[in-house]
């Protein structure tokens, strides 16, 4: 039996209204870090809140630790939750915030004090216990919120876009910290984000959602290299998704399926035709060059088709805007999609 499960969960606000969640089923193993990812309105936050018990579901079941929790309130489900913003209680210090859950469970005062200190050290805010939320930065506030959620040893940790309101630089550090803490305590975690990079970097498993259904699930690696639909291919990564006509223009070959997906790194660039080993070759003109630090992105115009190519930075081999070159790739590196 899986640790967390949703079984045929549907949510509508009125009987004939739109389905926010449409017959969703998923399973999560103990200790796994999974991410619900998708664009705004896909239902990922709603699903998370239904698992938390903050929203009711119209039909289906929710299991937490193999127990049917569908009719239980949020407090009864023993979950931990961190919100996107305004998580902390503004009238309490960081330490009081962290201690709140234990207070509600009537844990002994001394134990609370000790555990609170310990937890604040773990999130590296040991000296900020007496600070109020208004005195802490956004990143610090979310760390306190995380500590508050974990200290009660919840069955599952739920994070609703906790880093979306944080500065980019701090975000990267927090991504690592969340993952580190999650591994340390081995807590089953469900993370919601609209940022596909974040999903890829942090998760053991990704659930890609679109309009109330789960479009694809799998490890980040698998979802990246084997998208199952146009939506998946365009959402994750910076793929080139070509229809049959465009693929023919670029490769000279035909396809039976609807789309061909070319990941940016499978296309190799050559100055001379003679060195090429791949089976699909096309002439192209460089339209733009973007240096991303360790990689260079080239935007090519290949017989009217726009391609973006990603190569490792190399001082010796670089192309300039307007230069003509050959773009080559292996047909077997492409993914072909029916839909």
């Amino acid at each position, binding site marked *: 039996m899986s640790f967390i499960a949703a079984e045929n969960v549907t949510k509508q606000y009125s009987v004939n209204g739109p389905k926010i969640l449409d017959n969703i089923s998923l399973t999560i193993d103990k200790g796994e870090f999974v991410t619900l990812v998708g664009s705004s309105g896909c239902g990922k936050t709603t699903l998370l809140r239904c698992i*938390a018990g903050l929203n009711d579901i119209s039909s289906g079941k929710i299991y937490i630790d193999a127990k049917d929790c569908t009719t239980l309130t949020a*407090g009864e489900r023993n979950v931990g*939750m961190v*919100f996107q913003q*305004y998580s902390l209680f503004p009238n*309490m210090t960081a330490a009081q915030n962290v201690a709140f859950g234990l207070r509600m469970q009537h844990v002994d005062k001394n134990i609370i004090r000790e555990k609170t200190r310990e937890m604040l050290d773990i999130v590296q805010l040991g000296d900020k216990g007496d600070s109020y939320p*208004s005195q802490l930065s956004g990143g610090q506030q979310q760390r306190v919120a995380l500590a508050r959620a974990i200290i009660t040893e919840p069955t599952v940790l739920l994070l609703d876009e906790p880093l979306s309101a944080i500065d980019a630089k701090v975000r990267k550090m927090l991504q690592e910290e969340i993952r580190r803490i999650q591994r340390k305590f081995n807590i089953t975690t469900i993370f919601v984000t609209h940022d596909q990079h974040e999903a890829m970097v942090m998760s053991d498993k990704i659930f890609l959602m679109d309009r109330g259904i789960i479009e694809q699930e799998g490890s980040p690696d698998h979802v990246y290299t084997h998208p199952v639909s146009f939506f998946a291919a365009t959402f994750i990564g910076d793929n080139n998704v070509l229809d049959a006509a465009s693929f023919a223009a670029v490769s000279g070959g035909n396809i039976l399926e609807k789309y061909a997906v070319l990941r940016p790194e499978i296309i190799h660039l050559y100055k001379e035709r003679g060195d090429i080993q791949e089976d699909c070759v096309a002439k192209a003109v460089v339209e733009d060059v973007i240096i991303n630090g360790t990689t260079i992105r080239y935007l090519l115009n290949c017989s009217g088709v726009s391609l973006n190519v990603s190569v490792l930075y190399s001082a010796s081999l670089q192309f300039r805007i307007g230069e003509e070159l050959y773009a080559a790739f292996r047909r077997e590196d492409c993914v072909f999609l029916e839909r």
Partner: protein
Amino acid sequence: MRTRKQSHTYLLAILPFFLLVILFLFVPMISMLFKSFRSPETGAFTLNNYVTIFTKRYYLMSITNSLQVSLISTAAGIVIAFIAAFCFQKLGKKYRKVYTSALNMTSNFAGVTLAFSFMLLLGKTGTLVTLAKQMNMKSLADFDFYSVSGLMITYIYFQIPLGTLLLIPAFDSIKQEWKESSQVLKANSFQFWLYIGIPVLMPSILGTLSILFANSLSAYGTAYALMGNNFSLMTIRIAGMFTGDVVQQVELGSAMSTVLALLMCVSVVINMKYMGKAGELRK
């Protein structure tokens, strides 16, 4: 580069303001202050006026009455206003325009007009009193509206809409995330309000409290319409000392005015302190 010889004619524009404020605010205030320390017989400096109003029963009673009526009506008003604001915001954004209009409308209903309307309901031949007589509800049937209790009812009446209108925006600042976080951490609704909700709202509550207190302290029309000069309130006494048939007691009146003004100032300062804090917390 502007030369030093810039004309200062623009200062003429602010002259009317200075005149208004000096002639009709500062000078009267200061003269009142001076008069309060002046002896009516000799014209010399004295503290007697203040001693009199705090020792002679006639005057002391007006101070204690004013404080009593204000404190009680403010306390009752804030409790009702708090519950009302809580209930109103629970009803959601749909009805917001309706109930804020209703509250705005009733908050304009104060003073003499209010007193008379209540007389129609609770006076000797008032509607509710008649109704009570018919239904044999003795306590209501024998209710004497022209008393402190009657005054209290009218005072509470005009405190409620004002307090509610001031508190409703405060409830907006209670974030849904706080409620849900506390839910997940196994706190029930009562615990949420006790540990989080009310503490967060406290600056707004205290700020509103001080406004309500100042409001009822300075009320005149309602009390006068209801009980004329018969009930001893500071505002009524002060007015009586400057006008009316009895010999004028300008010095005593000034002393009492100063005391009232001080009480009002304290309220206003408290309000400014707490409303500022409330705004900060909301950030």
